């Protein structure tokens, strides 16, 4: 009989991991290398200004998306959850740009 809290079997495959521990170690190695590159380029003489800022932002985005996609498994989640998270991310970016524009500081920031 169906009740308010209907009892159903949890769909095991819904939460099944898509990667093996070896894959996770490889991803962590990749993230560590990217972090090392991030730090290293800040010490390269002459590698500064817009080039440095762009490189650091791109490397940061790569790390961010790698963790979200593979460690948080968002890549394997339904569209709705992807939408919620990326909507929040877009909201944060919009807030960031709005605040800095309001104080005319956007282009002085980096």
């Amino acid at each position: 009989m169906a009740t308010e809290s209907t009892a159903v079997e949890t769909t095991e495959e819904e939460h099944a991991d898509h990667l093996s521990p070896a894959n996770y170690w490889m991803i962590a190695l990749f993230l560590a290398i990217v972090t090392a590159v991030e730090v290293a380029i800040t010490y390269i003489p002459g590698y500064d200004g817009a080039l440095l800022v762009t490189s650091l932002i791109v490397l940061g985005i790569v790390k961010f998306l790698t963790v979200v996609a593979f460690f948080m498994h968002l890549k394997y989640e339904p569209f709705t959850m992807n939408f919620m998270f990326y909507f929040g991310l877009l909201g944060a970016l919009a807030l960031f740009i709005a605040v800095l524009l309001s104080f005319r500081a956007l282009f002085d920031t980096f």
Partner: protein
Amino acid sequence: MAVAHTTSGGLDIRKTAMWSFLASELMFFGALISTFLLYRGRTNGGPDAEELFDIPFTSVSSFVLLMSSLTMVLAHNAWERNDQRQLRLWLLSTAGLGLVFLGGQFYEFSTFVHEGLKLDTSPFGSSFYMLTGFHGAHVAVGVLMLSAMSILSFRVGLTKSRGMNVELVALYWHFVDIVWIVIFTVVYLLQV
């Protein structure tokens, strides 16, 4: 048999709630990072980022937190396979790495205070401590949740039939890591 926790669309309501919470947290940290960037140059004669930040030290802290994401995902993987021994090992490792990160942050704050940057020294100091302090508080909450999970795993075992606490704690922990990825790049590397 497990009690259903699904939305009308068939989504797990606990995970849906957690993703919504994390999305709202993104905006929370977005506001703090924006504030820091606005005030980073206002030092009131106190020390600035270039004088204070020790990039090699913070890089090690970042590496520790990054590796805690690895141990967390390995704990999650062990939970999926119902391997309780590995689950405990990786949960405790994650909590331990979280504590190492917090220790590093405590050391960094102590050094900064010693060098003249206090919460009320300047807008730069206030916004820096608010941002990194709130992140540290999130790490501390994560360590508490991981400790609770570890205790539960020893006492009753953490299986899928007992709910998806491990998965939710894992999501929270990885979130703490991605926020630090942004902070490390924007607040530390781009300021020196």
